[in-house]
Every structure is written in C-alpha cells, then in structure tokens.
C-alpha cells in the first residue's frame, strides 16, 4: 500500500514537472525572440480643442449688471490627454473568457475667455489630473469609474484658485453588439452648477456602424460612419462649467469678496465631422446652434453653507437667445496597442472612455480607436500585406 502511494506521489510529481515544462516549451521559441508585445489596449491620446460661441447682447434692460456687461460670448481652448498606466488581462481557465482591467491617467488644461464687452477681459484657467479605471468582465458588462479633480482660477488677476472634483461611476451592459444600456451616477459642473445626476444611457446600433446613442446627462448622438475615414454625427450636448472669477471689476458689490463663481452652460445642437487622416492623427469640426445660453454669478460667501450642494444664491443670472457655435479639434494617437477587432466589450470600453470625456468639459475626442471596417478594397500594395501572405503563395 505504502509503495503504491509512493509511486502515485512520484507520478504526480513527474506529471507536474512535465506539464510545467510543456508550458515553458510551448513558448520557448517565441520568448527567445524577445519580442515586446504592446501591453495596453489604449493608446496615449492627446486632444487639442478650440470652441467659440458668438457674441450676443444682453437684452434685459432692468438688470444693471446686464447693462454693464453689455454682451457675452465664449472663446475656449483646451488640451487634454489620457494615457494607459496599467492593464491586467485575466483569462478565465477553461471558460475562454478574457477579463481586463484598464487604469488610465487623464489630464486637462482649459483656458476660457468669457467675452463681456462692458468689462475688462478675463482669462479663466481650469486644469486637473485625474484617474479612471475600466473593468471589462469579458461577458456582457463593463464598469467605469472616473475621478477628475481640478483647479479653477482667474489668471488675468491675482486670485485664489478653487479646488473642485468631478466624478462618474457607470455600469455598461452589452446584451449584444447592436444594443447597450448604461446606468450610473455622475457629479459634474457641465450644467453650470455642482450637480449630482443619474447617468442613464442607451445605444441602438453597432459602434462601428450607424448608431443612435442617448447618454443622459452628457449627450445625444446620431453617428453615421460614411467610410473608414469619415464619421458624421448629429448631436446635442451641454457645454459649461463653474469657474473662479476675479471681482476686480466689482461686479459683486454686497461684500468685499476677491473672487466669485462664474458659471455657464449652453446646449449645443449641431453637426460634427470626424476625419481619420491616419492611424496617428484625426481631426474634427463641428458647428450648430447654442440654445439655453445661461450665465450666472454666485457669491462664494453667500453659498458657504452649501459646500457639497448645488449653489442657490446668485447675484446675476441671464438666459440669452440662441446663437451659433464653432468647435474644432485635433486628436493625436501615440504608441502601440493590442488589437481588439470585433470585441464588443472592448469597443464599449473605448466608447465609455470617450463619451465621458477627460476632465469635466464634456468634450469628446470621438472614437479614434474603434476600427471602422472598410467597405472597398483599394490601394493594397504588396509591401503592406507581408504579414498576411508568404511569397511562396504566388
């Protein structure tokens, strides 16, 4: 009996070694080539964005601040980026399911010039570094968590900056590649105040084909890929924020506050074209109408009792009529990334990352990483397809 047990143990031991060795052997030649494969699914992406809203006169003749400010327009420039910090891929043993976790570093730098013709020109800065984590369950679900702390400051005059933080948690479910729903919660300033919104989203249609995407409170998009190089979109989305504004012009006269909070939001409805020039560079242009043009000034002192809640006590608030806006941006992609063709969850991971743009500016770089299947086979040359064909096949 003892001998049998011993033999059994030895066999298990040898078997383990054999299995272990086979595993090593099965990769031996590949490992010896010392080829570095891309670690991440995400490229490093830099987005430069310029946004203008036409000037309009304040028509309210009863409010003396409106009379003093005279007119209002927006000029905005932002630079943002995201870069992968960490990617973990787990293969479910025997189930063939690949789970993945992605941690990205995000950053944004925004310069905003509200154009009030009745007072001196102010340049407002909003900048921050954030982190986002996306978990792809490998089945139907994707989790998204984002934290975007930022500082706003009036850089035209000496003023103290304000520290704020936006954040989002979303669960995204993909029953199939043509349909997706999302649920979550988001803390954002894009509607011109500190708001906690439920995040509710639905998408009908494949991400690389014609699709309608409604993502409350961020955007409604109807996307039409015209070809592998061009995507047209009809969209509506809010654009805005809460910024620190120097009281140099004594707009707030009730107390001697050095700064106050200038908030704005506008609802942009228009048309956007995303052009994929190359694998490394895209650009987009968008134009349309701004409606619900709101500008509000809140005193920080008067709202001191509401540090975590939306501000209520304002000393100036006006809604202007519809006007035109123009938006254009450049998108640069760097580095190599892993392939994820036809992986609907990874497409959703990319889409989540772009729908919930970097920072809290509600700007999207488009979906530069989701491949759009080309329809026509053209411009194929031999050197371009060496990976696919061996010479002896001719």
């Amino acid at each position, binding site marked *: 009996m003892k001998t049998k047990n011993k033999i059994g143990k030895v066999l298990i031991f040898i078997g383990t070694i054999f299995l272990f060795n086979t595993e090593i052997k*099965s*990769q*031996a*030649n*590949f490992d*010896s*080539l010392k*080829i*570095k*494969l*891309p670690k991440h699914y995400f490229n490093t992406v830099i987005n*430069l964005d*310029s946004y203008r809203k036409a000037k309009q006169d304040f028509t309210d003749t009863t409010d003396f601040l409106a009379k003093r400010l005279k007119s209002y327009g927006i000029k905005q*420039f932002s630079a943002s980026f995201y870069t992968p910090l960490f990617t973990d891929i787990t293969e479910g043993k*025997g*189930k*063939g*399911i*690949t789970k993945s976790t992605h941690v990205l570093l995000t950053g944004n730098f925004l310069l905003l010039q509200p154009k009030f013709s009745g007072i001196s020109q102010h340049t407002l800065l909003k900048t921050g570094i954030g982190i986002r984590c996306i978990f792809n369950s*490998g*089945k139907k679900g994707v989790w998204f968590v984002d934290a975007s702390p930022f500082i706003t400051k009036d850089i035209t005059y000496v003023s103290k900056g304000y520290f704020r933080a936006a954040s989002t948690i979303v669960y995204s479910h993909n029953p*199939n590649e043509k349909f997706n729903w999302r649920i979550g919660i988001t803390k954002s300033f894009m509607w011109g105040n500190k708001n906690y919104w439920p995040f509710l989203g639905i998408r009908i249609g494949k991400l690389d084909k014609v699709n309608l995407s409604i993502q409350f409170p961020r955007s409604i998009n109807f996307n039409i890929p015209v070809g*592998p190089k061009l995507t047209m979109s009809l969209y509506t989305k809010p654009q805005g924020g809460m910024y620190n504004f120097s009281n140099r012009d004594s707009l707030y006269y009730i107390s001697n506050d050095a700064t106050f909070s200038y908030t704005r939001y506008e609802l942009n409805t228009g048309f956007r074209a995303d052009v994929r*020039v*190359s*694998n*490394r*560079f895209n*650009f987009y242009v968008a134009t349309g109408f701004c409606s619900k043009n709101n500008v509000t000034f809140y005193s920080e002192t008067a709202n001191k009792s509401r540090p975590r809640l939306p501000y209520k006590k304002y000393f100036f608030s006006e809604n202007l009529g519809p006007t035109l806006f123009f938006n254009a941006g*450049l998108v*640069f992609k760097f580095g190599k990334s*892993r*392939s*994820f*063709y*036809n*992986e*609907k*969850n*990874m497409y959703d991971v990319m889409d989540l990352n772009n729908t919930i743009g970097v920072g809290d500016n509600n700007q999207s770089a488009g979906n530069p990483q989701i*491949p*759009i*299947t*080309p329809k026509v*086979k053209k*411009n*194929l*040359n*031999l*050197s*371009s*397809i*060496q*990976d*696919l*064909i061996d010479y002896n*096949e*001719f």
Partner: protein
Amino acid sequence: MKRFFKIVVFVCMFLYSGHSFAQGSRDKVAELRVSFISKKLEMTNSESEKFWPVYNEYNDKIKAIKRNLRQSYKKGVDNLSDGEAEELYQLDIKSKKAEAEIHEQYAEKIKAIIGAKKTVKLRVAEEEFKIEIIKNIKDKSD
C-alpha cells in the same frame, strides 16, 4: 495663441507626412480580413465573445514575429558578414518555429471555443482571404 496653433498645425503636418503609409494599409487589410472571417464563420454571440480576444492575441503575436523578422532583413543582405548572415539565418529559423508554436497553442484554444469544424472553416476563410488579396493585386497589375 495664434502662434501656438501654427506650431500645432506644423507638428500635425509633420506627423502626418512622417507617418508610415504601409502601416495604414496593413491595418486596413487586417480590418478587411477580420470582416471577411466574421462573415464566413457565422459564430453565435457567446462564441464571438470568447473567440475574438483569443484570435486577436494570436494575430498580434504572429504579426510581431513577422515584423521583427522583416525589420532584421531591412538592413539589406548584400553586405552581410558571415557572422551576421548566420545570425539572420538563425533568427529566420527561430521565427518560423515560434510561429508554428503560437499557431499550435492558439489553434487548441480556438478549437475549445468554436469547435473543430469552425476551426477548420477559419483556416479555409484565412486562405480564401489570401486568394482574394492576391487576385486584387493581380487585377491591379494587369
């Protein structure tokens, strides 16, 4: 601000002109192949969920092996010393062996996901796609 934009446009044009067009075409062909294969295989949703991550990983590895070899040959073969030629020869052999290893390893994984019948179909689809490409090139050159 205007100067900044000029710099940005310049950088962007530089990147664009410096970009490898061959890489762009290669990606386009890879996208076409994926589309071709997915049409031919007719997988269920559940199979598709499991299959594509494995197949993409397999392709990334094969592509990396071929790219590595191609870059080694890029230096030219006319002025190679005996030592360099031997090194290149060994790399060629190793690369072929590595390809075979990866192929075997992933064929097993793919078979476990989509079954033997569809795995055979996959190989046929890959071959058919190659023939399509060759036809396309021949048509252009005629």
